[in-house]
């Protein structure tokens, strides 16, 4: 059976793929002493002590809130600015359109390491260091071009005749855009939001450089605490597991949009 063989290959891949995550989950449910003393395939005496420690220490959970805050701001800014721009690229020819589009994409290629120091100086000048908005803005460097790129693909799939008909019917641009056009590419907006969220959530280098305490992301909190407590594996694993959860929730909520977006054949 061909179907069974496929399902088997996929199942095997997922098994391998989930193993490292399972292992971290396993570690997170054990105390550090337990981890170092015995090797076990599953926690014999599962404990939530690592999680409790994280939830009762404000330096831990505020890291979470910081990350979620700047990622949300970034996703919002990226979508709001990229929607009209993507529309312009998909519908109009104008002076320097191709050049600007290409220039936008090159920013996706700029090594984040290149921009570390100038970014720090730039945001210091504006007094934005250690604010959520600074990280959200910095992440726009790669998320906005990406959003324009993805949305442009979706928009090009909508026939231009729809726009023409709407304008003939007397729709103003903003009303047409909000009530007709955006609903048409809803799935595309969902996919774009997913990618923006993803790339902002996982980025650490810029986020860590631009923050010290007030806006410090959870991922950076992890590295700091590890060096301070001298490798508490259980605590580290619990923190790691917790960083996966927001991402998993986001995928769960956009899964239908993703399936639809993928069916439209644009990413």
């Amino acid at each position: 059976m061909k179907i069974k063989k496929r399902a088997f290959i996929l199942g095997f891949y997922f098994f391998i793929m989930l193993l490292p995550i399972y292992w971290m989950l396993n570690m997170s449910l054990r105390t550090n002493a337990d981890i170092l003393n015995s090797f076990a395939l599953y926690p014999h005496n599962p404990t939530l002590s690592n999680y409790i420690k994280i939830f009762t220490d404000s330096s831990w959970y505020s890291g979470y809130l910081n990350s979620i805050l700047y990622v949300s701001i970034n996703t919002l800014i990226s979508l709001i600015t990229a929607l009209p721009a993507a529309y312009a690229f998909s519908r109009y020819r104008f002076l320097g359109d191709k050049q600007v589009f290409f220039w936008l994409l090159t920013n996706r290629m700029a090594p984040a390491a290149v921009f570390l120091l100038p970014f720090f100086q730039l945001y210091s000048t504006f007094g934005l260091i250690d604010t959520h908005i600074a990280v959200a803005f910095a992440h726009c460097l790669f998320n906005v071009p990406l959003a324009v790129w993805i949305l442009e693909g979706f928009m090009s799939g909508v026939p231009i005749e729809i726009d023409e008909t709407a304008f003939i019917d007397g729709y103003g641009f903003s009303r047409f855009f909000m009530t007709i056009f955006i609903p048409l590419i809803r799935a595309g907006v969902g996919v774009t939001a997913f990618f923006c969220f993803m790339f902002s959530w996982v980025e650490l280098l810029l986020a860590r450089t631009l923050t010290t305490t007030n806006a410090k992301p959870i991922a950076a909190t992890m590295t700091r605490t590890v060096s301070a407590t001298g490798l508490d594996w259980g605590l580290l694993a619990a923190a790691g597991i917790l960083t996966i959860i927001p991402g998993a929730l986001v995928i769960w909520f956009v899964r239908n949009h993703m399936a639809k977006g993928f069916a439209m054949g644009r990413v």
Partner: protein
Amino acid sequence: MEKWQDNRAWFLVLPVFVIVAFSAIIPLLTVINYSVQDIFGPGQRVFVGAEWFKEVLGDKRLHAALWRQFLFSGLVLLIEIPLGIIIALTMPKKGWGASASLVTLALPLLIPWNVIGTIWIIFTRPDIGLFGATINKLGMSFDHTASSLDAWVTLMLMEVWHWTPLVALLAYAGLRAIPEAYYQAAKVDGASSWSVFRHIQLPKMRGVLTIAVLLRFMDSFLIYAEPFVLTGGGPGNSTTFLSIYLVKIAVGQFDLGPAAAFSLIYFLIILLFSWLFYQALQNAGKGEG
């Protein structure tokens, strides 16, 4: 579909232009400025011309890091692209299975990059890690903190584990866009599954695969957080990639001039190769009979 000619479209692009320019052009100018000056302290700087570029281009350790980087990115593309396509081909086309596969597949993509490193440290350590302990039990020694080869193996495993899902998602999107009639016609024509792949699926995936190759090339070429957490660039310099080396110069040694010159060269290399890949993939499949 004919596009409208209207320069007022610039107003729609303006917000994006401003926000990206703020984050891109000003820092880029700063970098260019640094790359031609020697900076002793606040307000004390001397114009040095192409001095730093010469120094960087002659840096033996940078050459080594560059070759390491090419080897790494090359391996990444060679493994992840075919593997991603295979996974996309095995995924269900619809129903709950499709949603479940998509969600599972996307999971590694949503883990912060340094956490990825942490996961793999925990997984591959010879004392507490499932992978490391198993390999050692099989009689082979495995320790990514001591052996360069082991560090590379761990890093490749991690990279493939982390990013193959992105390739698979893109390839899956491409596959879903192929109308059912193509498969039906191929069946009627008696095409083998290889022929279907070669003459229908692969050509129809060209667009998304171009994106996949470009994204994977750029991001693997820029890799920083994962090897930094996993090995810190070691053992020795065996996993010191360009970004890690760059941060060592810029932040560790505070040599801003050479670091800036290095950054610009780095950027140009990525630009050049992305363009080459783009051209190659656009032309692929056009000139055959």
